[in-house]
């Protein structure tokens, strides 16, 4: 190679360098952009949920001067508790509202007026009267739960700017609510109903208690089945399994099950547990069994990794002093591997907590108001409750859905934080 050609080549390379460096910088920016895109998606998702769900944690109340006239209530003097229980509180609320806003005279006007307070206000009033029977016969200012639509106006979610036909709160109701607000007769309180009640057709009466219990019972069953079986399977495959075709078959099956769509497990649950074994529909026990089959591969795979990570010297030492294979595993290997196994199991449980598709198949998608008392009572779980509410068109349910999502994500964050903590401790050892 002569000197001249080499100079030529160097010059060509030098000339292309600027372009190549620019390309390098561009490429790095693509990478940053991709990471940023992920962040932006995550941020929008969380902000959207929190923004929509935040108002659901408050509930507006309206102070109405209720005239508890025994005649309107339909109560005789010296009424018994039972009579007080069945008295016409709705009538009392209606007549008191009419007294506060005498301008509502037509049938339609009155209906709109009554829609300011919740259907549940009647029961709140009943409980109050049962606690303080001396209120009967007097007019007293009592805070009543606002209707979800009235509440959405008081929360500022609906304004007069929207055309009247497009909103459920009418101009007249807005006027009344404005007057109540000016008189200091409206109040926003923490929404305890959301945590203490079951499902309801009325957004302001709906809560997640049944779903929380259902999720708890379902996870209990899942854990009781998946954890022991998963750990046992992992121990077998890591410590005892001979290398043969049967073991290969088991391993292939576990890896494939980990990637089977969750809804297929629902079909299995429907065909086997409900149709063949005739277990009860909508019950946490069936949901728990199905979810445990679904989470088993996760638990087995992570437990195997944890058992594999135990140093062989521990095994050799135990075997050397005469322990049997099983004693070595139970007394020495498992305790060391336990944090890792627990980490994997918690992650598996978190998966099960967020899962809903297979539960739809086995009928855990029902309208349930009563808190389940055990694993065989009909129940629903938090993600399915979210699915059910997301289908309701009312604005009140949209915010309830988002709030339920916030609760669900809160639990998931707790579980994952626990898993991360365990892993950190494990790594320190």
């Amino acid at each position, binding site marked *: 190679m002569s000197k001249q050609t080499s100079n030529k080549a160097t010059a060509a390379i030098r000339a292309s360098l600027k372009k*190549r460096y620019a*390309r*390098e910088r561009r*490429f*790095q920016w*693509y*990478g940053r952009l*991709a*990471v940023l895109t*992920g*962040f932006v*998606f*995550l941020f929008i*998702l969380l902000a*959207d*949920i929190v923004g929509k769900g935040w108002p659901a944690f408050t509930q507006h109340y309206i102070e109405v001067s209720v005239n508890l006239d025994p005649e309107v209530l339909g109560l005789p003097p010296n009424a018994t508790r039972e009579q007080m229980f069945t008295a016409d509180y709705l009538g009392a609320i209606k007549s008191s509202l009419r007294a506060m806003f005498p301008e509502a005279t037509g049938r339609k006007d009155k209906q709109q007026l009554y829609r300011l307070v919740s259907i549940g206000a009647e029961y709140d009033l009943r409980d109050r009267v049962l606690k303080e029977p001396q209120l009967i016969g007097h007019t007293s200012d009592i805070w009543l739960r606002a209707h979800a639509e009235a509440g959405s106006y008081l929360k500022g979610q609906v304004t007069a700017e929207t055309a009247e036909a497009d909103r459920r709160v009418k101009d007249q109701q807005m006027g009344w609510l404005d007057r109540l607000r000016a008189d200091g007769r409206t109040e926003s309180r923490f929404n305890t109903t959301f945590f203490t009640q079951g499902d309801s057709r009325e957004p302001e009466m709906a809560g997640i208690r049944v779903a929380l219990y259902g999720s708890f019972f379902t996870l209990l069953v899942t854990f009781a089945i998946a954890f022991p*079986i998963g750990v*046992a*399977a*992992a*121990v*077998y*495959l890591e410590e*005892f*399994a001979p290398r043969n075709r049967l073991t290969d078959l*088991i391993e292939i*099956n*576990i890896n*494939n*099950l980990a*990637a089977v*769509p*969750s*809804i*297929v497990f629902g*079909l*299995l649950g*429907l*065909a*086997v547990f409900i149709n063949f*074994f*005739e277990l009860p529909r909508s019950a946490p026990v069936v949901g728990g069994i199905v979810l445990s089959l679904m989470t*088993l*591969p996760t638990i087995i795979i992570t437990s195997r990794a944890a058992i594999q990570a135990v140093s062989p010297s521990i095994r050799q030492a135990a075997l050397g002093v005469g322990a049997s294979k*099983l004693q070595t595993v139970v007394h020495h290997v498992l305790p060391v591997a336990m944090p890792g196994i627990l980490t994997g199991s918690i992650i598996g449980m*978190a998966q099960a907590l*967020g*899962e809903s*598709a297979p539960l*739809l*198949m086995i009928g855990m998608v029902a309208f349930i108001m009563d808190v389940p008392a055990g694993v065989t009572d009909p129940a629903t779980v938090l*993600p399915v409750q*979210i*699915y059910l509410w*997301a*289908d309701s068109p009312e604005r009140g349910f*949209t915010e309830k*859905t988002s709030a339920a999502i916030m609760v*669900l*994500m809160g639990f998931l964050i707790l579980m994952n934080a626990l898993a991360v903590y365990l892993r950190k401790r494990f790594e320190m050892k």
Partner: protein
Amino acid sequence: METTTVFLVLVLLTIISFFMGRKRSHAVTSGLGGARALHSLPKHYGYMAALWALLPALLVLVLWLVFEHGVITRMVLSELPPAVQDMPASQQGLYFNQIVSYAHGATDASMLDETQVLAAQHYRFYDSTSRSIKALLVFLVALAGAILALRQIRPALRARNHVEGILKWMLFGCSFLAVLTTLGIVMSVLFEAIRFFQAIPIADFLFGLEWSPQMAIRADQVAASGSFGFVPLLVGTLLISAVAMVIAVPVGLMSAIYLSEYATRRFRAVTKPVLEILAGVPTVVYGFFAALTVAPFIRGLGESIGLHVASESALAAGLVMGIMIIPFVMSLSDDIINAVPDTLREASLGMGATMNETIRKVLLPAALPGIVGGILLAVSRAIGETMIVVMAAGLSAKLTINPLEAVTTITVQIVTLLVGDQEFDNPKTLAAFALGLVLFFVTLLLNVIALYVVRKYREQYE
């Protein structure tokens, strides 16, 4: 006796057996110099007795519980008059439920006819008899097991080996459950699918271009048996998955490349877990986000530039599904890029290539099979994803590849066909299992190919 009581008594019997076994091991060696004469530790003889008491009895209890309900139902049903037995299944079910709820004292007799009241009495009789027999049988089996074990105890009995043998079989049973689960899945979808294909020819299902599973309400309506053409569902599923991949693959792959090749260790340590949150968000949350935020947004955006966008567009569902899959693609690609040997990187950089030339011309070609495998896994996940499409995709099957229109997917149809009232003699319900069969085998095929490709790729660099 209640099942829980039976179970608790069984546990108690097991514990007693343990102590008796241990005591007996001491007793048989009393003349031989105590526990030293035993082959195993005294507690192993206890474990042995306990296992013999517990396991057979537990098996009996579980089998009894599984079959109790069905057998009693059939016994009561067979005694009902022929008029009831000829009822259609759903009506008969309702009729029978009234009997059961009366027998349990949940309703009063006012809603029932005389036969039902009589049947309820029979039901109650069978139910209580079954409970007594169950308790008796379980206890007898437990006692028999314990006595058998106790009688075997001799100093030379290798109790530890015996117990460990049983436990090893139990461990094997636990891992064999995975095979049973797969078998259960295949059987349950296959049997119902075969029944479906008896009603609808398999060719009509696989190549039919129309899907409208609405069946005739009355049985005498001719030719109103719905049409079960699978093609629109497949196209809809693939369309939504394709949109998802268009989002997830570039973002996930580029993020993985950036994080593994360019980012500082600290940036990576913070960024990766944050992006992985996206994988931990429950799918129902994505579904809600897609249906209530993304779909209206895309619709509004489309209309502002004069495009007609369906309110349940494939684009919205696919976009959100893509977001869900980003971390999946990212961590798979990350693993695979990290598995490329450093010597390849160093050789390329040493020749004067820039980092981006190294990545595009050396790393990516070397990692390509692995990345393809990872993408196949992601596609399989997109096809099987249910909640996002149930909440954000359409219900009516339309054969189109326009992402702005509403399409439906396999999983959506499974859910719509099976949620609500079900009758298992109806092609509409059975169709869900046929779809489940297809879904299972498509995802299985993708997974097997993907896992094979990834494993081959790993072996190449080991």
